[in-house]
């Protein structure tokens, strides 16, 4: 049942510079993850960030893409149909 989701997450995790992937549901619970040590510790926060960002434009048809930049890594968060996809990338070449 989850094979298509697992396949998609695996493909994303194999992209260059991608260090981790978390896919969470509308309740902030982990659906699938790759290369993340404790995904349950941050899945709720990632979903909360995506939900809060969407509240900035409540009448918009599309959800915003949230990018959180750190010193050594970047997190890209996008929410579609209640599913939040978070992609961790390394900024170091």
């Amino acid at each position, binding site marked *: 049942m989850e094979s298509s989701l697992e396949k998609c997450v695996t493909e994303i995790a194999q992209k260059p510079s991608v260090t981790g992937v978390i896919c969470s549901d509308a*309740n902030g619970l982990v659906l699938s993850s790759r290369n993340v040590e404790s995904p349950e510790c941050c899945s*709720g926060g990632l979903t*909360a960030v995506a939900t809060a960002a969407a509240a900035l434009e409540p009448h918009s048809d599309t959800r915003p893409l949230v990018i959180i930049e750190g010193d050594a890594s970047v997190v890209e968060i996008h929410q579609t149909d209640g599913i939040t996809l978070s992609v961790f990338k390394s900024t170091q070449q």
Partner: protein
Amino acid sequence: MNSNFTLMQKRTVQNPFTSQYELNVVKISCHLQGQSGVRTMSIRKYVYNLLESTPGLLAIVITDKDGVLIVKVCSKDNPELSQRSSYIAPFASASDQASKLGLGRNNTIVCLYDKFQVVSMNKGSVHMHFVGAADGNTGDFLTLDSQLDPILPNLEELVNVVRIQGDVL
């Protein structure tokens, strides 16, 4: 950030039916020292700030392992939740039963209802209950215990002190 907790006031009353001492009122002074200096806040205000900063969270209830209330904060939008304690009493026995499933000691139980959800955590001598909206962020609620960890040792110490006093008398 360093934290220093001082027990300022505690009051226990003796149950006339069981002769057991029960926690009645607790006030703990929490001294949080950050980079800008010393800031003092009560434990209740600390927990209330956590409640206000978490979207979808309606109430935080902290009790000892027998269900005796230690701290209870409720959002302004849902004050009636503070009157319902039916979700607190069964948790202790439910957690004990869940620990017998062969999966180790039970830590957390999440209950989803039509109108709200309750995330209950077993921290040994202290139990924490987080009541949130039915469509709230459960994953976020499950991480709230880490934000209450700074005050957990002092809550456990308080519970142990009260219990020892009750045993002695």
